[in-house]
């Protein structure tokens, strides 16, 4: 298993020198969404607290790094940590409101969506942060400004994000924090009876998750060179973040990566294919059908199903 993982990493490192720039671009999105999915996985997958507003953290992180870069001349390499910290602060507020007052299931979903929507409306209406026009980042190609002439540099940054977050989640899984998260998802009351401070553990999960997502916001901003309130704080982005770990297997180490490798190419292919046929937006129907299929046939996601298959083989 370890050998397989090392081999996969080696292939991914070598790949940009073999494949064309289109494939590199697709892979950048696969890695980046796997990273965001992994960040969500900590609170949404392991702890089972369904945040459906994680786009808010991407937006806060991205806006913070972009504004600090534009107005204070601060390098995004530093700004990304500040963006992450601000996102973590918002995560702490949302988490405290949700967990302290016992909002579960749909109510927690609504709370997280509501906060993301508030962020979106504020960003749309405050001209100091670009208002409805959004923020545009001038391309300098300066690596110090988190900008690269060569697309492959973004590829490696995204790859590192994905691998580092996965290593972190793997480590969490093997420690007390991870064991508590998994138990909380199954029965919070029983956890309390066994000496687990569930509020504290869930808060830590939410803060860590929102921090990582906020750091990802910097990549989003400086890879796409623009931040649009409706895109970066909107529900569709939150759905994109959630759907990969769910399809791949929420609460598993490999779920977000697997889900991203399944969904991102599918979205890309169906988008291109349907757009050529004049059926714009039809890829969303494919997404919807796939999600229904996963919920029906693989309710725990693709990764646990793969593991079962591998074990059955002699």
């Amino acid at each position, binding site marked *: 298993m370890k050998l397989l993982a090392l081999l996969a990493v080696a292939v991914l490192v070598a790949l940009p020198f073999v494949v064309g720039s289109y494939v590199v671009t697709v892979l950048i999105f696969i890695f980046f969404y796997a990273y965001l999915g992994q960040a969500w996985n900590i609170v949404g997958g392991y702890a089972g607290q369904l945040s459906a507003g994680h786009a808010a953290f991407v937006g806060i992180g991205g806006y913070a790094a972009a504004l600090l870069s534009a107005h204070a001349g601060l390098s995004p390499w530093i700004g990304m940590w500040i963006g992450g910290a601000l996102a973590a602060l918002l995560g702490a507020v949302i988490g405290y409101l949700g967990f302290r007052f016992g909002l579960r299931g749909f109510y927690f979903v609504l709370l997280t969506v509501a906060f993301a929507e508030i962020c979106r409306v504020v960003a749309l209406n405050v001209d100091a942060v670009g208002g409805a026009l959004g923020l545009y980042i001038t391309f300098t190609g300066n690596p110090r400004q988190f900008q690269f002439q060569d697309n492959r540099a973004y590829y490696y940054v995204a790859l590192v994000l994905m691998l580092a977050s996965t290593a972190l989640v793997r480590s969490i899984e093997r420690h007390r924090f991870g064991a*508590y998260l998994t138990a909380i998802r199954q029965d919070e009351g029983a956890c309390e009876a066994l000496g687990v401070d569930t509020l504290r553990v869930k808060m830590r999960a939410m803060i860590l998750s929102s921090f990582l997502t906020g750091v990802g916001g910097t990549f989003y901003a400086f890879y796409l060179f623009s931040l649009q309130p409706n895109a970066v704080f909107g529900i569709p982005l939150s759905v994109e973040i959630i759907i990969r770990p769910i399809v791949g297997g929420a609460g598993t180490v490999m779920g977000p990566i697997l889900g991203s490798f399944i969904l991102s190419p599918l979205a890309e292919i169906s988008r291109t294919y349907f757009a050529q046929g004049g059926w714009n937006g039809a890829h969303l129907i494919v997404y919807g059908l796939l999600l229904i299929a996963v919920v029906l046939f693989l309710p725990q996601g693709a990764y646990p199903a793969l593991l079962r298959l591998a074990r059955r083989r002699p």
Partner: protein
Amino acid sequence: MSLLEVSGLTKRFGGLLAVGGLDLSLAEGEMLGLIGPNGAGKTTVFNLLSGFLRPDGGEIRFGGRNVVGLKPHEICRLGMARTFQIVRPFPRLSVLDNVKVAALARHPAMARALEAARAVVDRVGLGPRVTDLAGSLTLADRKRLELARALATEPSLLLLDEVMAGLNATEIDAMVRQVAAINQGGISVLLIEHNMRAVMSLSHRIIVLSFGEKISSGTPREVAADRRVIEAYLGEEYVHPPQA
């Protein structure tokens, strides 16, 4: 000195007095039975003691410390562990992982927690089931698992809520031996039990609740002979059988 000292414990649910001014004391090393008809308030007492419910009045002193207002996890860490009448295993975790979560309360390092969990699993006789998912266990094994998890938090006082319910005669005998051994190992036990044979043989003393109030207390023999107890369980006509 008593390990647990409860005075004037009161809990209302709306207009219903679930527990009314209960006094109770449990000595170190004691096995105290808590019995009473359905709806007498036994489980409510457990929920109050373990911090899952907040009392409307009264005091709970555990190890000399007032624990009213503490959260369940804090009370657990002070050394009072409870089981649930309707068992609450983590269904998609293995038996060992279930117990591990409890052991982590005392042993933050994973390797040490696993070691402690394994020892408890063997102790309650779940050794052969150690890798099975908790959701696949029989009821008797789930009850054992519930007990194992509570033990793994290394309590000085164990609150057992109907650990015999739903078990067959053989399983009950095994559980009775188990609970007796735990008590002999130095852990005080407060036992809610409907199985009279079990509670009578295990308890040093018994407290009888009816409609939230203590109606009798004493040794098992005293309690069994108390007419108020017979009345509460069976109705007045059994105390004074009507003449034919």
